[in-house]
């Protein structure tokens, strides 16, 4: 199928430019200035729209296998496309965990058959995610894993972390660590500080995250391995990362979109849909996260999409499970962030397109260029989207944006040259 997507503002080389895109089959075959009179294929008029490469989310929980009542591959990948995300990397905290090549392989096959958004798999770093024995990283890499993590949980044993970094680096793949010293976070539900005191909620000190970040960075520099710090949320962690980069090891980091838009103060209504681990930062830490994002200390933005059933979340705040869904609100939130903090939308979009593609070596994605996959999102900045119950394709609804209206609207999504029904 051939398409000509014309009259839109296309994100190329970090700038929106008036260009027309020719798609043939799966790929982008040409990027042209003119509007040809006759064109053998379908024409899509993208006047007034922004054309963005399909977004890449490197941290999502799709809950299959084992927790399909919260989400499964189909609903998760549909949700991704609904949000303009054409590549999703899923975390291994499923039941059983994704610690065997067979599990990784079958998930990837299923995703291929579903033919929705593209699935990348992050396999478990340790068997059963128990933190005791390394998984068969080599065979997992062959089965298609692009990284290793015990996410949901930290790799608590520093010796195991060291060995994981060493072993994974032989395949040029990262160990992605959920940095949380549980002995410090204990039974906390929000960031410890003035507001946790004011609201009477047990707090998680920022040091619970940063002590392990410091540990992992030192280990990466010791072993010349690659550590990717998951969902950075504190100023202390930012400082460690900034000082740790550029040495023997490879240090990369991600920040979750919600941490850039919400702060600890926002928990005053005790809404469990705002309960997240790591929790919303203080205002000061949020400023540091944004600064780190802009200066490259933090490399990419992710959703940490964490679906839960309604009955699990509709309980007392401290008793609710952690997690916010994000696949279907990521792009809208990025747009909101750009207006709220007067940051260039283009710069933010890089963090969910070209940056993750480059970091994780995802071929043919993250840019609008000849020979790249035709993974595209058409976005109307003047329209708006009301996030009603029926807007969502995910099985879950645990987001503070439920029922709210956000500026901007995704009008078309194309994945591998196919238009998606949204």
């Amino acid at each position, binding site marked *: 199928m051939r398409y000509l997507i014309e009259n839109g503002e296309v994100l190329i080389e970090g700038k929106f430019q008036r260009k027309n895109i020719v798609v043939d089959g799966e790929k982008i075959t040409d990027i042209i200035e003119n509007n040809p009179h006759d064109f053998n294929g379908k024409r899509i008029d993208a006047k007034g729209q922004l054309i963005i490469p399909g977004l890449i989310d490197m941290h999502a929980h799709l809950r299959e296998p084992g927790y399909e009542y919260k989400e499964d591959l189909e609903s998760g990948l549909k949700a991704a496309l609904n949000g303009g995300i054409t590549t999703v990397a899923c975390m291994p905290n499923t039941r059983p965990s994704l610690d065997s090549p067979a599990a990784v392989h079958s998930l990837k096959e299923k995703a291929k058959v579903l033919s929705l958004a593209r699935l990348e798999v992050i396999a478990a770093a340790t068997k059963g995610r128990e933190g005791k024995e390394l998984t068969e990283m080599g065979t997992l890499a062959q089965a298609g894993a692009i990284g290793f993590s015990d996410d949901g949980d930290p790799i608590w044993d520093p010796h195991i972390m060291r060995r994981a970094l060493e072993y994974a680096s032989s395949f040029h793949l990262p160990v992605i660590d959920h940095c949380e010293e549980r002995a410090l976070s204990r039974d906390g539900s929000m960031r*410890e*500080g*003035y507001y*946790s*005191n*004011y*609201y*009477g*909620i047990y*707090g998680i*000190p920022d040091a619970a995250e940063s002590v392990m970040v410091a540990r992992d960075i030192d280990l990466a520099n010791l072993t010349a391995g690659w550590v990717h710090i998951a969902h950075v949320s504190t100023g202390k962690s930012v400082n460690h990362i900034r000082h740790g980069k550029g040495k023997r090891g490879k240090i990369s980091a991600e920040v979750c979109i919600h941490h850039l838009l919400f702060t600890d103060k926002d928990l005053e*209504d*005790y809404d469990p849909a705002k309960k997240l681990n790591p929790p919303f930062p203080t205002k000061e830490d949020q400023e540091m996260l944004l600064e780190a994002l802009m200066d490259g200390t933090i490399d990419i933005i992710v959703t940490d999409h964490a679906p839960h059933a309604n*009955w699990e979340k*509709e*309980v*007392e*705040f*401290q*008793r609710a499970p952690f997690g916010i869904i994000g696949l279907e609100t990521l792009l809208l939130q990025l747009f909101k962030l750009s207006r709220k903090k007067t940051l260039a939308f283009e710069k933010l979009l890089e963090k969910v397109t070209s940056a993750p593609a480059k970091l994780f070596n995802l071929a043919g994605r993250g840019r609008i260029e000849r020979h790249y996959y035709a993974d595209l999102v058409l976005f109307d900045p003047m329209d708006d989207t009301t996030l009603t119950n029926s807007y969502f394709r995910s099985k879950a609804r645990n987001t503070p944006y439920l029922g709210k209206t956000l500026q901007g609207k995704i009008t078309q999504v194309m994945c591998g040259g196919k238009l998606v029904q949204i």
Partner: protein
Amino acid sequence: MSMVGRDVYDVDVFNVEEVYQLFELTKHFKGILSRKVKKVPALRGVTVCTAFFENSTRTKISFDLAAKRLGADTVAFSASSSSLKKGESLKDTILTLDAMGIDLYVVRHSEPGTPKFIKKYTKAIVINAGDGFHAHPTQALLDNYTIWEKKGKIDGLKISIVGDIQHSRVVRSNIKLMKMLGAEVTVCGPKTLMPLEIEKSGVKVSYDINEAIDGADVVMGLRMQLERQTSGLFPTLEEYHKLYGITKDRLSHAKPDVIFMHPGPMNRGVEVDDHVADFERSVVQEQVTNGEAIRMALLYSVLGGRMEE
């Protein structure tokens, strides 16, 4: 301003004028409590449910009596004997109670934010009787009423609160109310039991009990729970008593007309000495009577004036 229909999550749902209105009403209700027939028919036909998901004797009885003395019908829900044990969610519990026609819930729960959570599932008025260590508005109201009654004012008084500040809802609500009414508050206790950044609430912080009590008009002791010892927060209760126990000797450095307060129940020999607990400037018993009167005033103020459907 009419307080009719107002939910009481914490003391800051009232402005200063309204607090004093409540204090004036409390005086009248205290008068009723000294009559032979301690009852007025003001809230006849109203159903008040005391929903206590956490154990309590004094606060529960205080609210129950307050409602009954105003002529209301009361219903007591206690978590231990309920279907919550069978796994029914809080949401379903409230929906069930509501279907039986409750006009007002008095809620105590170990989770902060529960009163606001309950309000999502009911149109009845909700009064917070203690949610986790977040707030306990009626305790703060009765504490401040007691001070106002004894001292004639609150503005400009020096109030010192000693004990486990971290885990106390009584302290949090009191700090808010005392600051609203113009008092100068000092909190004192071991550092492991002092919340991070509490000075941002506008209080003085001291780790030395003599410094904290010096020149105080009011000294309030808080209950020190035995579990704190085991969770690494404090070595022993004996050490606590040595460093932070309120003794007659230490109190002598406060103003000569100082009053001693405690939300109860007291751990004699831990946070307070026998002498202090019983001494003539201790107003602990009166706090209980005042608690009842002010709860009557509160129920009367928020329940009156509803238009019949």
